[in-house]
């Protein structure tokens, strides 16, 4: 499976004021197979293979945690917010139902 991984995380480019909220955008390549589809040629069910959790850590806190099913679209885009308290990374971890894991981060700058 070549089309998997390459996680991306993007935060605001400009420095923020303390207490401002920062939009964090994330993207990863993943088939997000629900386990409910059949292969056209073989007629066999395609096994479930989807990201089941996305966790964003900032300042030592798991700020946002997403728990997904196979109903999230393939190559999932996901955005959320964090409250900018001090400069530092927002670390994002994706895990799929086969135990594979990806990490990527974005730096938040606070003036």
């Amino acid at each position, binding site marked *: 499976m070549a089309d998997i991984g390459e996680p991306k995380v993007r935060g605001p480019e400009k420095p923020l004021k303390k207490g401002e909220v920062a939009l964090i955008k994330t993207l990863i390549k993943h088939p997000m197979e629900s386990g409910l589809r059949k292969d056209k040629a073989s007629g066999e069910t395609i096994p479930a293979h989807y990201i089941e959790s996305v966790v964003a850590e900032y300042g030592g806190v798991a700020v946002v945690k997403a728990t997904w099913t196979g*109903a999230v679209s393939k190559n999932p885009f996901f955005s959320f917010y964090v409250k900018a308290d001090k400069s530092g990374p927002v670390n994002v971890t994706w895990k799929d139902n086969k135990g594979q894991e990806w990490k990527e981060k974005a730096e938040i700058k606070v003036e």
Partner: protein
Amino acid sequence: MGMNSESTLTRRNFLGAVGATGAVCVAAGLVGMPSLAQAEDAPAVNIDELVAKDLGPGKVAMEKVKIDTPAKAENGALVRMPISVDHPMEKDNYIKSLAVYVDDNPKPLVGRFDFTPESGKAEVEMRIKMAKASQVRAVAVSNKGALYGAYLKIEVAEGGCAG
């Protein structure tokens, strides 16, 4: 099952292109999933019960939550789903979780999002799959257990591969 399975398959062959993996979508109760057969007419699962299980018991107040999506989606494999909750995110008064359901998907729960006061804002955006037109529900729960929700019926021009 049986009689209409074949025509259903034919009708659904084009969906392989949507999935772009050469696979055919199998929607609820159509092929190979007899246990879900009745889901075509009546939802096999009660979403209110799912909400109670996932977020806690109580009446859902139809306020504060917004699903910012057009009522018609062109592609059921990629339905843009921005959801926001207009609620403070303070230490003792914040939105703890948000769950998203598509009533008519084989598995209605799309995802659940857990927040902290440090989130600053209970707002997320994602893309979801919808097999066909359905009601979408976004239900949020505060740290005090208050439930808020928004329900939106979304038409789907081309069905995606459901959950």
